[in-house]
């Protein structure tokens, strides 16, 4: 335990700290994606049958944007973070698909 912590102190190359720039880009991106979704619904900008897949897709894009940029899931050392989130998503996407088609309504 101790040994590992000490090794860690003599850090290899410093992690490159990104400035606020890419986070602000992510913020603006999120705003745009959100606005697109709201506009699509509010003004019926696209054919109605296509609206649901479109806004759900936007939600996924925005979610991954935030997970990767804001929560640093793209960085090294986040392998298990990725595994964890994707495994959870996998489990629940199957459940949601089943809930859409096979609950007897």
């Amino acid at each position: 335990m101790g040994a590992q912590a000490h090794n860690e102190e003599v850090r290899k190359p410093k992690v490159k700290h990104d400035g606020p720039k890419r986070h602000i880009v992510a913020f603006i991106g999120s705003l745009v994606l959100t606005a697109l979704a709201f506009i699509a619904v509010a003004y019926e900008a696209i054919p109605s049958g296509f609206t649901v897949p479109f806004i759900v897709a936007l939600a996924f894009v925005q979610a991954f944007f935030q997970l990767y940029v804001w929560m640093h899931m793209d960085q090294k050392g986040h392998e298990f973070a990725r595994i964890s989130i994707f495994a959870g998503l996998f489990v629940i996407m199957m459940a949601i698909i089943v809930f859409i088609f096979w609950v007897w309504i």
Partner: protein
Amino acid sequence: MSAHASHAPNRSGLWDYLTTVDHKKIAILYLIAGGIFFLAGGLEALLIRLQLMYPEIEFVGAKTFNELITMHGTTMIFLAVMPIIFALMNAIVPLQIGARDVAFPFVNALGFWLFFFGGVLLNTSWFLGGAPDAGWTSYTTLALNQYSGRGVDFYVLGLQIAGLGTLIGGINFLVTIINMRAPGMTFMRMPMFTWASFITSGLILFAFPAITVGLVLLMFDRLFGGNFFNPDAGGNVVIWEHLFWIFGHPEVYILILPAFGIISEVVSTFSRKRLFGYSSMVFATALIGFLGFMVWAHHMFTTGLGAIANTLFGLATMLIAVPTGIKIFNWLLTMWGGQIRFPTANLFAVGFIPTFTIGGMTGVMLAVPPADYQYHDSYFVVAHFHYVIVGGLVFGLFSGLYYWWPKMFGKMLNETIGKWNFWTFFIGFHLTFFPQHFLGLMGMPRRVFTYLKDQNLDMGNFISTIGAFGMTIGTILFVINVFVAAKSSKRAPADPWDGRSLEWAIPSPPPEYNFVQTPLVRGLDALWVEKMAGNKGMTPAEPIGDIHMPSPSFLPFLMSLGLFVAGYGFIYHNYVVVVIGILATLACMFTRSVKDDPGYHIHEDELEEKGVKA
């Protein structure tokens, strides 16, 4: 073991155990609590069998019978075998990876106390107006207010609290195994039991939230007028079935994978050979864990989901037979040509293999949807899942307990009593459950409290009950064995079985810091590698130095107690009690967050005094 240090906690007896954060002591707590619940669940099983011994008798009656089957299933799954698995994981996994402790000792203790109080809450229902009686699956609408009494509230609250404990326990083990391995202990050098614990913890992480949600929804329906499962207001009962089995099916792999791990360790040690096909074993374990999430609807073939759903889920279910088959052949090939010894641990392991295979085969039979329409809700299903859970998991647990008892307690279990334990339990088990296959095929439905005479069900049921006595005797022999071992003055050696993995490199029982020096791992079967190289023990990976230990804490107990109290508040609609309980829990969380735990150090001269080597 009294460590004088910065804040040397000098505690003893009960207070020590109430405040401990040491994984080895938490293991003992899990074992005691799980063992007591196991005896309670076993007693319930015996009463069930006595009621069914002869046709048309009124031994316990229909209402009590419903409560007994519900509590038997719930207790055994959530409060008996899971905690005993956690006992072995706690006792062994940190030792097998060469760690001094788990990643979150405090959370580990909290997990235990949550499970404990959840279990106690559930079981107090017996004395407070009747136990839950809607079956261990608590299907709605049966489990709604109109059809079930207050007992189901105990089920809902008790399982939520216990489930929370299991969930954080799972996270703790995942982080422990990922982050706390000794130098050289790569993933592909981890013993199979550690691997199985790793995958099992992962399954816990992704399966338990589903049941938590299901229970919360059921609670809202029962206590706050929700309409999730109320068809009159647009609710849908199938949602409960889905949520329950999204959790429920991974749950059976949560149970059986650690047993696979134990069997792998025991078979390899007592064949004096390395495990045959280690990497395929790891692969098979991971694959079972993965597939385990895609098969839950095979519990619902007769619900009416339609041909497409049934076909997909049936196929996925049959696929699981492939990695399971890999495992069975690997165990057989491990024994092939080995120098096999048969102490009790290995008897249970070898008894496990054919028994589990039978359970697996009936599983594949059940996976065929058209055939399942025949088997569904009959004693065939009861026979199937007892073959995998008792014949698989409980055999595995007995094997593991005989194998690791010296490491956990520093005493050997008596082999003579052990052999009697095995044979009575083994024969009793097959007598009990083998006839149930045929009872089911002849049309006996499960969960009925009695049956008519002369329908070819009399003999099978009678034999089954006789078998239950055999299992009872086996279990009592085990309890006697525990007391005999505790009384005996002979101390167990560090390595009684000529072991292969790291836990056998340190004394039995291990000192609280486990390893004086973190060991350097140089291959699979770390200790065996050193033995073959002619070394006396492990090569240390660090110089001797002070060892930092976490401080004991009473907060986990109090935190869980708060939720326990709040649980009663919910059940009796007394929201003052709910608020008091939850505030108590929040206050403990607050204290934990604000007050840093500096821990304490055990000084290196003290380690030397003990003369303990890594």
